[in-house]
């Protein structure tokens, strides 16, 4: 590669173009969709699939089980953000669960430090996580509004997401022998955590959900809305066999919150 200035140029432009386009897409998403939206009727979901027979049937069935949907921003953090929002929201009405979860959350920091996470960076995320969690313990009538506002303020919301990512990573590393079987390729669990769990905006898969729901002992039911054969959006419960506390809707690479009837 020596003399062709034109080639240099095209090489450069390619990188620039890809990244510029990526930033534009991110910006579009940021400006148009709230981190966590308002509660909507499930009929808004039906309206999205009027001309698609497979999805239409599944959404119809979904509407017999769920009354509302709350959308989250599709930024790769949606599972973690939806999980935290839905669970904190449920704690507003269940004070005894709030108290026991508060203790689990306090203890979780010690557990992560004992697993080798640096206390130093962990602390900020844990502190902010606890601060937002504390809102779910408030008795005031506007506690829900406050929670909603916190989840739509990146200064709080993303700190909560990071902390949940670290908790999932901690769980995976603690039970590495078990989770190793679910990792594709020849990555170790630690490598997988560093590449797919801890970085922000990295999308979540089954393994993230199993790890987080196990770490916090919170049952999650995920409804899968996809092109698979069947006339309903199939449910998967995590950890397997538990009673779900929160319900999420999965559509290829995205999670929203569902509210049962």
């Amino acid at each position: 590669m020596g003399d062709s200035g034109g080639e240099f140029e095209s090489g450069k432009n390619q990188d620039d173009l890809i990244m510029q386009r990526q930033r534009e897409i991110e910006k579009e998403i940021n400006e148009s969709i709230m981190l966590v939206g308002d509660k909507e009727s499930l009929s808004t979901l039906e309206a999205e699939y009027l001309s698609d027979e497979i999805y239409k049937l599944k959404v119809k069935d979904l509407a017999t089980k769920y009354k509302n949907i709350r959308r989250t921003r599709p930024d790769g953090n949606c599972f973690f953000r939806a999980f935290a929002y839905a669970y904190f929201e449920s704690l507003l009405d269940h004070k005894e669960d709030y108290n026991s979860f508060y203790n689990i959350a306090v203890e979780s920091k010690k557990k992560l430090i004992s697993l080798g996470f640096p206390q130093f960076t962990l602390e900020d995320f844990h502190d902010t996580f606890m601060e937002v969690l504390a809102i779910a313990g408030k008795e005031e009538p506007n506690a829900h509004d406050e929670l909603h506002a916190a989840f739509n303020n990146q200064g709080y919301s993303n700190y909560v997401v990071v902390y949940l990512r670290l908790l999932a990573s901690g769980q995976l590393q603690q039970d590495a022998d078990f989770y190793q079987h679910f990792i594709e390729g020849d990555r170790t669990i630690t490598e997988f955590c560093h590449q797919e769990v801890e970085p922000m905006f990295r999308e979540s898969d089954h393994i993230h959900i199993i790890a987080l729901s196990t770490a916090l002992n919170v049952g999650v039911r995920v409804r899968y809305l996809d092109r698979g054969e069947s006339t309903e959006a199939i449910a998967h419960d995590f950890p397997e066999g538990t009673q779900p506390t929160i319900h999420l809707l999965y559509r290829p690479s995205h999670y929203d919150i569902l509210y049962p009837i």
Partner: protein
Amino acid sequence: MPTYLTIYLLPTLAEPLFHCSTKLYVNQLRVLLTKRLQKELLSLIKDPPPGVLVDSEKAEQNLSIWTIYMKGADETLFAGEEFQLQFKFSPKYPFDSPEVTFIGPNIPVHPHVYSNGHICLSILTEDWSPALSVQSVCLSIISMLSSCKEKKRPSDNAFYVKTCSKNPKKTKWWYHDDTV
């Protein structure tokens, strides 16, 4: 608590704690960012990795650009050499990775370091996590230098240095070879 500081500065807001005004939102992030950088600086001054020294005076003057001196580890190809690193922090740090480059007269001759100081290291771009820190980046760079078996520039050095953006984070890196 420092995160509440902004609320006292803006007493006229209708919903004081979590009002989503841009002003408060920016303040909240700035407060957390400043707190985090001060904490990192203090820790790096007090408890630096071996061979690492931060120019604390400069960093205290401008928290968003640090100069860090690094010595090549003993019994490695870089033993006895001294390097300078520059860390730049965007307002989105720690969600955005720091921009890290070698600067100064001695740029290590290493298969992942370009002659303009840019470093090809996955944690500096796509594998960055907000739980990492200046300290962990320094340790990764020390380890990258220490495991070097042959002092040479990346094979595409001439091409890259001519065409790259000033900011290494604008490069779409291919992390194809972890063995060197």
